[in-house]
């Protein structure tokens, strides 16, 4: 997939020129521009997945892209479960990918 950015002069919603910004994902710096969501910055850097599922460790990134599915959550500046498709990137944001192990079920009558 190739990220596609509308040049400012053709962007009817926000025609102001965008400034570059820098975020870090698991301590790796990634460059984006103002106005992008963090998910947008990641996609722009060809990063398609950042979370892993608990059961099989399968990769997950954007699924719905509109804040409904919670597939794209990650930790942002120390806060867990942030939907990256909903969070506007801010210069200096520190993103950490999440992997949550499944809880261990209580076996029958161990109590």
């Amino acid at each position: 997939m190739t990220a596609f950015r509308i040049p400012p002069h053709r962007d009817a919603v926000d025609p102001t020129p965008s400034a570059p910004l820098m975020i870090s994902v698991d301590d790796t710096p990634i460059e984006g521009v103002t106005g992008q969501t963090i998910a947008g910055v990641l996609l722009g850097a060809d990063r398609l997945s950042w979370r892993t599922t608990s059961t099989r460790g399968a990769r997950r990134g954007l699924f719905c892209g509109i804040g409904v599915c919670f597939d794209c959550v990650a930790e942002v500046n120390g806060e867990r479960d942030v939907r990256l498709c909903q969070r506007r990137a801010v210069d200096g944001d520190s993103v950490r990918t999440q992997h949550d192990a499944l809880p261990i079920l209580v076996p029958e009558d161990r109590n």
Partner: protein
Amino acid sequence: MPRIAVIGAGISGAAVARELARRGHEVTVVERAAAAAGTSGRGEGNVLVSDKGPGPELELSVLSRRLWSALACELREELPEPFPSIEFEAKGGLVVATTEAGARSLEEFAGAQRAVGVRADVLDRASVNELEPHLTERSTAAIHYPEDAQVQPVIATEALLASARNAGATVITGTRVSAAVRDDAGRLSGVRVESRTGRRDIIAADQVVIAAGPWSAEVSSLLGAPIPVKPRRGMVLVTTRMPHRIRRKVYDADYVGAVGSSDVDLQTSSVVESTAAGTVLIGSSREQVGFRDDFRARIVAELARKATALFPFLAGASVMRTYSGFRPYMPDHLPVIGEDPRAAGIWHATGHEGAGIGLAPATAQLLASLIDGSPAPLDASPFAPARPSLAPYLNEPYPNEVTV
């Protein structure tokens, strides 16, 4: 071989169908929508002994809890991978009081339960911290109920139906019942049904079991045996997945009072637990608003506030979605299990309110033994449709005052 139609493929209908099919009856399940599409798929999967005081419903709960343990093993053996696990988990319950008065009544309540054989251990502060290290420090009493358990109710319903099919039952979904068919002598001979595509048919049956949850009022009315079951709505919040910090079903002592109340107005009490997927479920509200399922922010706010009072760390949790379901509510607070006194051949299995998942196996066993004429596992009279406490309501016409 007696032919039996079971109306409703929720947990009760599924359990009844399985039990009857395994006893050699010819069973057909008729479901308006899909398996577990109504109440069963919209609760928390509670298998509790903790929320009932001594009495017939507690006896039914204790029997059912024992049956669930056996069922979980039987179903796993009968339906190996890749059939998903029913996630039966004997996680135990922790009931917490947060006021001095609440502490006294909780301890009394637990004492009465212990007297009839329920395990209800009073915990000191150190034991509470060990069981639930993230619980509020402001609790005034805590009782541990090691027998409380949980299942994934949709998978459990599907598993019971699969097992019923293995025993010869037929399951028809997307089909609603419109009337009873009786022969010239007035004996029941079947039910008229109509599929979603408009196909009409008659399903031959000598007996009909109505297990349509809160919709049993409508179905029983169509079949000439109206029962006064009403929908009582409950809402649940689901958080995003998080590291496992809540190990048991933890609820505040108000829950018991809310379960037993007859209030029409909104009532909430906190019930908090983790699921096998890592989300946290936050309940529970009860209100009588008919079958209205509109979103109400006030309920979400109240549930969230009470849950954070039990587990302060939840203040930073994200609520991912909410859902609500309609519990089948009986005016005298007891399930209705047995043959209708007014219409021979029509049987009821509903009215469990929020306890239907937990009570399904015992309900099935009791109902099947009544149909068979075999020895009942416990006294059936408190649940009989002909019981005195229900008599004043049996002549209420349907639709009753709370409707769609």
